[in-house]
């Protein structure tokens, strides 16, 4: 395996505050990598820089060895890297099915493929409803399906489990594992549901105050003192 996504010395500040502060990490091709850390650690800002929604002040991001940190989001998506949002962005006045179909890079069979993906997250029966009528958790799932529809090689998921019911979480874990197995998609996932992170991830990266403070296998990270202090709290040791 080689690094498919590399982030080196990434810096992004807001009003002088360093949200991402010289973050360096890499994600191996075909792996599932968990990205954890306290609220405000810079995880979502890092996602925004990698996916082109924010421009970093310094540092570089490479996808398959090519620099992408000065490209627009749609060009990064075309290069194969797609992300989801913590607060999902859906087209409220279009139907659920249309929301997914418009994400298809090629129009052929788009609706049929969209319908199939919606079944996976139990949204099939809502295909013809306006996306604006979905609940918060359902919009989250719709956002995930839209990202899958693009057919990414690298998928960044920002808190895919937040607001999703426990039952569906178990199913989503299976889907995500299948996306990696079947389609060979590389996944980088920000998530606070530790049970999910520890089960799904080959490797876990921990951020705090804009920096990477630890990385390793789930077991290594779980018992790392710095991680317990900064993130888990003694009760989750």
């Amino acid at each position, binding site marked *: 395996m080689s690094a498919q996504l590399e982030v080196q010395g990434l810096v992004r500040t807001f009003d002088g505050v360093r949200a991402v502060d010289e973050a360096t990490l890499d994600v191996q091709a075909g792996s599932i990598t968990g990205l954890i850390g306290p*609220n405000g650690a810079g995880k979502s800002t890092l996602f925004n820089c990698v996916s082109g929604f924010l421009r970093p002040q310094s540092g570089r991001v490479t996808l398959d060895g090519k620099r992408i940190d000065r490209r627009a989001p749609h060009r990064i998506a075309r290069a194969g890297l797609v992300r989801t949002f913590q607060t999902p962005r859906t087209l409220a006045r279009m139907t659920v099915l249309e929301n997914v179909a418009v994400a298809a890079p090629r129009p052929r069979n788009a609706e049929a493929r969209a319908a199939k993906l919606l079944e996976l997250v139990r949204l099939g029966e809502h295909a013809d409803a306006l996306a604006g009528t979905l*609940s*918060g958790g359902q919009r989250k799932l719709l956002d995930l399906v839209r990202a899958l529809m693009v057919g990414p090689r690298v998928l960044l998921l920002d808190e895919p489990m*937040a607001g*999703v*019911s426990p039952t569906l979480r*178990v199913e989503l874990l299976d889907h995500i594992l299948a996306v990696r197995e079947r389609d060979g998609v590389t996944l980088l996932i920000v998530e*606070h549901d530790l049970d999910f992170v520890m089960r799904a991830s080959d490797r876990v990266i921990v951020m705090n105050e804009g920096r990477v403070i630890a990385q390793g296998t789930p077991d290594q990270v779980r018992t790392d003192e710095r991680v317990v202090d900064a993130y888990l709290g003694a009760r989750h040791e």
Partner: protein
Amino acid sequence: MSLLEVEALEAGYDDALVLRGVSLCVDAHEIVAVIGPNGAGKSTMLKAVYGLVTLHGGSVRFDGENVTGMRPDRLTRRGLNFVPQTDNVFPTLTLAENLHVAALVLPKSERRAGIQRMRELFPIVAERRRQRAGTLSGGQRKLVALARAMVTRPRLLLLDEPSAGLSPQAMDLVFDKLVEINALGIGIVMVEQNARRALALAHRGYVLDTGRNAIEGSGADLLADRQVAELYLGGSATIASSSNSRSASSGMKPDTK
């Protein structure tokens, strides 16, 4: 008579009916957890009780009075308040300003003392009073949102996913604070997808499914029930062993409606 009595509530958005007859009651001093699949109507139920969604049927009684369809600001003055999942603070205002705005429902002479009490209950409000709420981390923001609701002197709080998006440590902080608030004699109804944690904390729980009541019972009983675990908790039943769990007091009853 319960503090809050919700009877056969029907509500929705545009032509989509989300609640198809939901009932629930909450006693003063009680923590009640509401769980269920995505799209079951949990958040809509809270919004319907708090006057944010148009009702098609059913009734809401608070403290013995009919408050069905009453405006949110009037409900707040009566002691019923709601904390949404997101957009629950003014991001461009400082923490002090956020509290001042929330305290406007109190009589003028009582505002200062009310805000002072919140500085004691939520130390972050005092420590970072000049900081804009938009620059807070997720966990801190939830605490400020709770403080904004608490300053109105509620007897009952409706909370939409208080733990969503929080790190494990921040989640502990928020749940501990809810226990502390409840110990002050304030009732809590919380919708939660971290269902096990919520049920462990709650005196009683309701499961909603497709806009209807499915199952209700004590938090401990729901946690221990195999059917609930398989259908709604994503796994096998567990015996509640959390330090926060309550002892089972009332039996569980499947709702036959």
